[in-house]
């Protein structure tokens, strides 16, 4: 790629640091063990043997936000739950990403009322929205791969 082409075959491979870091981030993105409603059942399905999210390096749902990289908001967030979700997000270390899984987390969905937060982007910054009520496990994996595409394009200066 770079220096090894000029120096000949030295048995080394060089690469851009940004790509290596993003490759590492996409292939070991641990989600937070955290489900709110029926979408959580499909999230469990995406991690069980048929769809097996560990193929993407995310077999470990971390019960502690301090070890998690990815927050999958699976389900409707009530106004009472909102401060808790925000607190969990604040406790996650950088870099961190958020997927709003399903209609209720994305925009309130069918629950257009005073008790439900009309989209979790009111309280946390959302990277990817996944449509469906609930989304199939494949749809969630598709959302995760969409997020991976986004992470691959990230610049290191974002976290510098």
């Amino acid at each position, binding site marked *: 790629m770079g220096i090894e082409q000029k120096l000949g075959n030295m048995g080394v491979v060089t690469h851009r640091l940004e790509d290596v870091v993003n490759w590492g981030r996409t292939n070991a993105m641990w989600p937070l063990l955290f489900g709110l409603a029926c979408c959580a059942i499909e999230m469990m399905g995406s991690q069980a*043997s*048929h*769809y*097996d999210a560990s*193929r993407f390096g995310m077999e470990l749902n971390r019960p502690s936000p301090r070890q998690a990289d990815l927050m999958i908001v699976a389900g409707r967030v009530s106004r009472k739950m909102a401060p808790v979700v925000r607190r969990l997000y604040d406790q996650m270390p950088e870099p961190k990403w958020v997927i709003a899984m399903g*209609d209720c987390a*994305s*925009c309130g*969905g*069918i629950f*257009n009322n005073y008790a439900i937060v009309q*989209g979790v*982007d009111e309280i946390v910054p959302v*990277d*990817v*929205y*996944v*449509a*469906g*009520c609930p*989304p*199939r496990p*494949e*749809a969630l*994996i*598709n*959302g995760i*791969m*969409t997020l991976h595409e*986004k992470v691959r394009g990230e610049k290191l200066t974002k976290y510098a």
Partner: protein
Amino acid sequence: MFGEIIKGLGTTLKHLFMPPVTIQYPEQKRPVRTRFKGRHELKRYDNGLERCIGCSLCAAACPADAIFVEASENTDEARYSPGERYASTYEINMLRCIFCGYCEDACPTQAIVLEHNYELSFYDRASAIYTKEMLIVDVPVNGRATPQVVEPGVFTRSIPDMENPK
């Protein structure tokens, strides 16, 4: 007690040689059921005219208020659909839609059909609003694109007598 341990370990050993059940999702897709409700499509007749007549019954039936329809008048010089009106704007917010299929049931012309695409992920909420151009299917082989110039007095009924008007 020893026999039970052997039995248990035997079960483990049996599962070790079973073929894996994992579906390698992005490369290999599990086929959905025929009645699966995924992303919507707006259908056309065989001659290329749009089935949607802009009646907004789907929007009225939608429990999540995900559909927005705006109708305009058809003329014989610029005809989009049979009858008086057609949908000039047709938008579905995929993040509101709960894929219940009530719009499909409400539609008098079978214009809107929930098809089998479920891969709907977006980077922002605005891109989740699917417009008519994104929802409508391609013109059939023997059909013409809309708007069509047609002879007057042929397509007077919104719900045609025959299934596919000539």
